[in-house]
């Protein structure tokens, strides 16, 4: 999370530091917890998954001569009798960014061993995520009600529905997994598992507050992906 201190090893900044870290023994990422390194590499791999989805979307949308539906109109929502473009999407973005912020601060309190604050913020994050999933379910049912299907839709190119359901579905799946783990870790933090050194259910190994940061990385990544989906799918 910040500059670590290592006995007998000088941590140089910048690219010099990169060279000396890489050339050193034992670890390449100095002071980075195994689990955190693992999450980063996993997210790198997951970035490739979402990149492939979005690249396919670009190729699919770009090469169809049929007109692509205007997302601004398709995703408009009626508020007080006026159709507001992308209203629901804007709200979803708002919710997700809110939960990302609470997560970031939860990580901070986790490192300060502030159990209560960390727990409440995790709970807030989990609820934010749950709201997001709920809104997505609403959005899906609205579109399905309007006749949008994965194989066809009344607005234009059939690929619109295909890519929409697949990409938002895969993102929503990530959010749902995140929400489940957020609730689990909320419980673990409130129950004081890290203070008591309680062993994990499956791994039978002791945990640490660094797990909150690892979970945080995942959650911010989900938010990150949404930034790209929002730009490419809803605004483009």
């Amino acid at each position, binding site marked *: 999370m*910040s500059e670590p201190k290592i006995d007998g090893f000088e941590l140089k900044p910048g690219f010099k530091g990169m060279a000396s870290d890489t050339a050193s023994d034992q670890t390449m990422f100095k002071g980075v917890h195994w689990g955190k390194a693992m999450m980063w590499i996993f997210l790198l791999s997951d970035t490739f998954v979402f*990149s492939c989805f979005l690249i396919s979307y670009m190729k699919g949308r770009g090469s169809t*001569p049929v007109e692509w539906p205007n997302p601004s109109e398709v995703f408009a929502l009626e508020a007080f009798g006026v159709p507001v473009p992308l209203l629901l999407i804007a709200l979803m*973005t708002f919710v997700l960014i809110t939960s990302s912020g609470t997560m970031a601060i939860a990580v901070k309190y986790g490192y300060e061993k502030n159990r209560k604050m960390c727990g409440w913020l995790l709970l807030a994050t989990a609820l934010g995520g749950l709201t997001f999933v709920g809104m997505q379910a609403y959005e899906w049912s609205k579109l399905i009600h309007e006749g949008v299907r994965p194989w066809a839709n009344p607005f234009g190119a059939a690929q619109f529905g295909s890519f929409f359901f697949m990409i938002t579905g895969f993102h929503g799946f990530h959010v749902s997994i995140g929400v489940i783990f957020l609730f689990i870790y909320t419980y673990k933090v409130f129950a004081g598992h890290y203070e008591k050194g309680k062993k994990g259910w499956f791994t039978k190994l002791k945990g640490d507050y660094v797990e909150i940061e690892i979970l945080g990385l995942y959650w911010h990544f989900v938010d990150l992906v949404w930034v790209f989906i929002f730009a490419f799918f809803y605004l483009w």
Partner: protein
Amino acid sequence: MENTNNIEKTDKKEEASTHKIGIYLWIWTLLFVLSFFSYMVDWYQFQGMLRWSLILFFMFLKAGLIMAFFMHLFWERYALVNVLLWPMTAIACFIFLMAAEFQYTLFSRLFYFVVGGGA
């Protein structure tokens, strides 16, 4: 003896290592503002190059802020940052080539399947 010293040192270090809450609040606010701006791109129905460049600009700014501060990449050592960012060149290459590919497919389809499409 040395052990106990170490423990104290470590604890202190962790205490000091967390960042001020202000920076998170700042980034948080910035994210809201940027999201609002990118929403406004649609609201005012900007079109053409202006639209695409604004969308991309806000997107990369938001993504950068989340990665740099919420995911702490700004504070990580360069070894980790570089390992994470260099693979993106493969993605960039893939995007670039697929952009060329869809234009070619679209051209072929218009040229061979649509009356007057080749013009």
